[in-house]
C-alpha cells in the first residue's frame, strides 16, 4: 500500500493531460450509427441496426413535424385535435392522418427496439472495448433520451395512460428530498429541495396542467432535434456517409412500419381524467418492467436505484478491462446482459398479469441477481485458470465472491425476516395475551395491532433489536447496516490489497527499466 503512494501522486499530477489524450482518442473513434461498419453490414444484419436506427429517427422526426401542423397543445383541446388528425384528415379513401400518426408512433417504438438491440449487440460482442467506450455511452444515452422522448410524447395525446404515467414519473424525483436522517448529508440534500425542484422543472408548476403540456411539447421536440443537430455537425465536419444500409433496406423498414400503421391504427385511449385512476393502469411497453420494479421496492430505494441503473451499466463497462471480446471469454458481462434481458421480459409479463407480492417476490430477484453474477464469475474463473495455466486458488477472487454472497444473503434476510418481531421469542409468547385483551375492546384487532401495542408499552422486549425505532425508520434497518458495514469492509480491504500489489508491480517495472537503461549508459 505504502509503495503505491508515490505512483498515485505522480499519476494524479499528470491526470489532466492523460485524460485529454484519452478523451481525444475516443472522440475520434466514436461511431454513433455504425457509419464506419459498411462492410460488416453487408454480411451481418446485426451491423445494420445503426443505419436503420438513424433512418427510423428521421422518419419519426418528419412525421412529427407534419403532425405539429394540426396538433393543439392545450389541455382541453389536445385530445380532440388528435381525434381530428386520426379521423378527419383524409384524402379520398386514404386516411392520411391515421397513417402519419401510425408512422410516428410505431416509428418511435421501432426506434426504441433498434436502440435496445444495438446496445445489446455492443454489450455482448464487447464492442465498447479498445477505445470505443464513447460509442457505447452515447448509444445508451440516446436510448434513455428516446424513452424520455416517448414519455413526453404520449402525454401530448392527453389520455388516461399518459396522465397517470406522467404523474408517477413526476412524483419519482420528490423522493430525493426524503433522504433518511441517518444518511450523512441527508438533511442537507433534503434542504436543497432537489427532488421537488426537478419535479417542478418537469411539470412547470406543482401539478400537471396547461404548463406541463407546453413544456412537454417543447421537451419532446428538443430531445429529438438537439442530438440530431450535433450528429449532423459531425457529419458535416468529417464528411462520412450517414447510413450504412442500402436504399432497398430503407424502403423495407418504411414499408414494415407503414404496414403496421395500416393494420393496427394507433390507439388513443380515453381522455385524461385527474379524478379517476383506472384499474389496472399500465404504462407504455418499454416502461412496464420498470413499473413492476417499483412495486417491489420501498419507493425511496426504487427512486435511487432507477436513477442508478444506467450509471451501474456504464460503471460495469469500465470494469471490463480485458482485451478479449469473444463470447466465452467474458462470461460475467454476458451474464449481466442476459440477466437484464430476463428481468425485462419476466417483469413485463408479471405486470401484465398483475402478479406482485412485495414480501414473496423481491428476495427472489435479489437472489437471482447474485446467482447470475456468481454463474458468470465461476465460468470466468475456469477460463482464466485455463488461459494462465494456474491452480484454482491463484485466480480465485475471494473479495468479489464475498461481496456477492453478502449482498445476496443480506437482501434475502432483510426481506424475509425484516419484520423481526416474529423472531422475538418473548414477544411471540406475549402477543396472544395482548391480542385477547385488545379483542375484548375491538373485535377486529389483529396480531399486528398487538405487536404495535407491545412495541409502545413494553420497550424492554426490544422487538426491533433496538428500542430506537422512530417514525420513518424502516423495519429491519439493523440488518441493512450490518450489510453496508460488510460491504465497506470488503471494498476497503480489496482496495488496500490491490493497491499494495499495484505499487509492488510498478516498482518492479521501474527497476527493470533502470536495469535496462544502465548498461546502455555505461556503454555510451
Amino acid at each position, binding site marked *: 500500500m505504502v509503495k503505491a503512494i508515490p505512483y498515485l501522486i505522480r499519476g494524479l499530477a499528470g491526470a489532466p493531460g492523460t485524460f485529454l489524450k484519452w478523451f481525444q482518442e475516443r472522440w475520434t473513434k466514436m461511431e454513433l450509427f455504425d457509419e464506419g461498419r459498411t462492410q460488416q453490414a453487408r454480411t451481418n444484419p446485426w451491423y445494420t441496426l445503426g443505419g436503420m436506427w438513424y433512418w427510423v429517427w428521421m422518419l419519426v422526426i418528419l412525421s412529427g413535424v407534419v403532425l405539429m401542423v394540426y396538433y393543439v397543445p392545450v389541455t382541453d383541446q389536445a385530445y380532440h385535435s388528435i381525434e381530428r388528425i386520426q379521423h378527419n384528415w383524409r384524402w379520398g379513401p386514404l386516411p392520411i392522418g391515421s397513417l402519419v400518426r401510425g408512422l410516428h408512433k410505431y416509428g418511435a417504438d421501432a426506434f426504441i427496439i433498434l436502440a435496445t438491440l444495438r446496445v445489446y449487440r455492443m454489450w455482448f460482442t464487447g464492442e465498447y472495448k479498445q477505445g470505443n467506450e464513447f460509442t457505447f455511452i452515447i448509444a445508451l444515452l440516446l436510448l434513455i433520451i428516446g424513452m424520455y422522448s416517448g414519455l413526453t410524447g404520449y402525454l401530448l395525446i392527453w389520455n388516461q395512460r399518459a396522465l397517470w404515467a406522467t404523474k408517477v414519473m413526476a412524483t419519482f424525483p420528490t423522493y430525493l428530498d426524503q433522504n433518511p436522517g441517518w444518511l450523512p448529508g441527508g438533511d442537507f440534500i433534503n434542504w436543497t429541495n432537489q427532488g421537488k425542484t426537478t419535479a417542478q422543472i418537469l411539470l412547470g408548476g406543482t401539478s400537471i396542467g396547461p404548463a406541463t403540456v407546453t413544456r412537454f411539447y417543447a421537451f419532446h421536440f428538443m430531445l429529438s432535434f438537439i442530438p440530431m443537430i450535433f450528429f449532423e455537425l459531425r457529419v458535416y465536419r468529417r464528411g462520412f456517409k450517414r447510413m450504412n444500409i442500402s436504399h432497398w433496406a430503407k424502403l423495407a423498414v418504411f414499408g414494415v412500419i407503414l404496414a403496421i400503421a395500416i393494420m393496427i391504427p394507433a390507439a388513443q385511449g380515453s381522455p385524461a381524467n385527474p*379524478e379517476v385512476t383506472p384499474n389496472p393502469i399500465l404504462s407504455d411497453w418499454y416502461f412496464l418492467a420498470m413499473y413492476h420494479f417499483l412495486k417491489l421496492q420501498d419507493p425511496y430505494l426504487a427512486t435511487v436505484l432507477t436513477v442508478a441503473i444506467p450509471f451501474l451499466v456504464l460503471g460495469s463497462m469500465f470494469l471490463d478491462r480485458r482485451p478479449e471480446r469473444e463470447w466465452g471469454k467474458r462470461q460475467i458481462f454476458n451474464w449481466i446482459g442476459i440477466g437484464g434481458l430476463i428481468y425485462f421480459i419476466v417483469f413485463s409479463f408479471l405486470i401484465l398479469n398483475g402478479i406482485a407480492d412485495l414480501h414473496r417476490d423481491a428476495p427472489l430477484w435479489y437472489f437471482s441477481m447474485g446467482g447470475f453474477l456468481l454463474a458468470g464469475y465461476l465460468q470466468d474463473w475456469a477460463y482464466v485458470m485455463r488461459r494462465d495455466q494456474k491452480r484454482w486458488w491463484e485466480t480465485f477472487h475471494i473479495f468479489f465472491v464475498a461481496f456477492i454472497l453478502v449482498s445476496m444473503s443480506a437482501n434475502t434476510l432483510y426481506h424475509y425476516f425484516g419484520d423481526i418481531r416474529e423472531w422475538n421469542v418473548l414477544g411471540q409468547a406475549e402477543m396472544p395475551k395482548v391480542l385477547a385483551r385488545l379483542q375484548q375492546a375491538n373485535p*377486529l384487532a389483529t396480531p399486528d395491532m398487538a405487536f404495535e401495542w407491545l412495541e409502545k408499552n413494553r420497550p424492554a422486549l426490544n422487538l426491533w433489536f433496538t428500542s430506537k425505532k422512530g417514525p420513518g425508520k424502516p423495519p429491519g434497518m439493523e440488518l441493512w447496516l450490518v450489510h453496508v458495514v460488510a460491504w465497506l469492509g470488503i471494498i476497503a480491504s480489496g482496495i488496500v490489497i490491490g493497491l499494495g500489489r499495484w505499487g509492488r508491480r510498478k516498482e518492479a517495472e521501474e527497476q527493470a527499466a533502470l536495469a535496462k537503461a544502465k548498461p546502455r549508459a555505461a556503454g555510451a
Partner: protein
Amino acid sequence: MKENQRRIFLKAITSIPILGGAVMAASALIRYFKPTTVGGVKGLVAPPDEAGSSVQIVAALSELTQPWDFKEFIYIRKSVEYSSRKIQGAKIPGFVVRLPDEFTDPKDPKSRFVVVQRICPHLGCTFNFVKSPEELSGGYNYKPPMPTHPYFACPCHLSVYDPTRKTEVNLQGPLPGKVVSGPAPRPPRTMSFDIKDGQILITGTEGGGVG
C-alpha cells in the same frame, strides 16, 4: 518536462474562471426552467410556491350517518400559476369516511371521520375506497383479515391503507390509513377539517406530492 508542467498549471488556472462562468450559465438556465416567485439564487433551492388555502364545504353530516358511509369530494387548492392569470386552482380529490363507533373516541366528534387526500403518497395516483374483500384480493393483491371492513386501495402499485388504524408520521403525529400492503411509504396525506352547523369544512391541505 518542466515546460510541460508549467503549461498544465497555467491551463488549470485559466480553467477556473471558465468553469465558474459555465456554472453560472447553468444555474441561470435552471433558474429559467424552474418556476418560483422566490428571486435570485435562493430560488434554486426554494420549495414550490404554496398559495393560500380557503375554507370549503365538502359534505353534510346527514350524508354520513351509517358506519362506512363515505363521500368523494374535490377540494380546490389554489397555487401560483406562472402566467398572466397569476393563480390556478389544482383539484385535490378527497375522501371523507364515517368510521363505526368501535374505532372512535366518544368524546371527540371529529374522530368519527377520516378525511384524507385521495392522492396516493407512493407515486400520486388517485386511490379508491374498496368495500368488497373479493375486489381487494383479486384486484389489489391484498387478502383482508376476517371479519373485514373497507379499505383504501390504489390501482397503480397496489398499496392498501387501513382507515381504522394510524401510523406515526415524522413531525405530524399519528395519521389514519396505516399501509397494510404494497409499497407506499406512509399513510395518505391529510386535510385539516372542522365540523360546523352539520357540515364538514376543509380548512387546509398537507403539501408535497404532485397534484
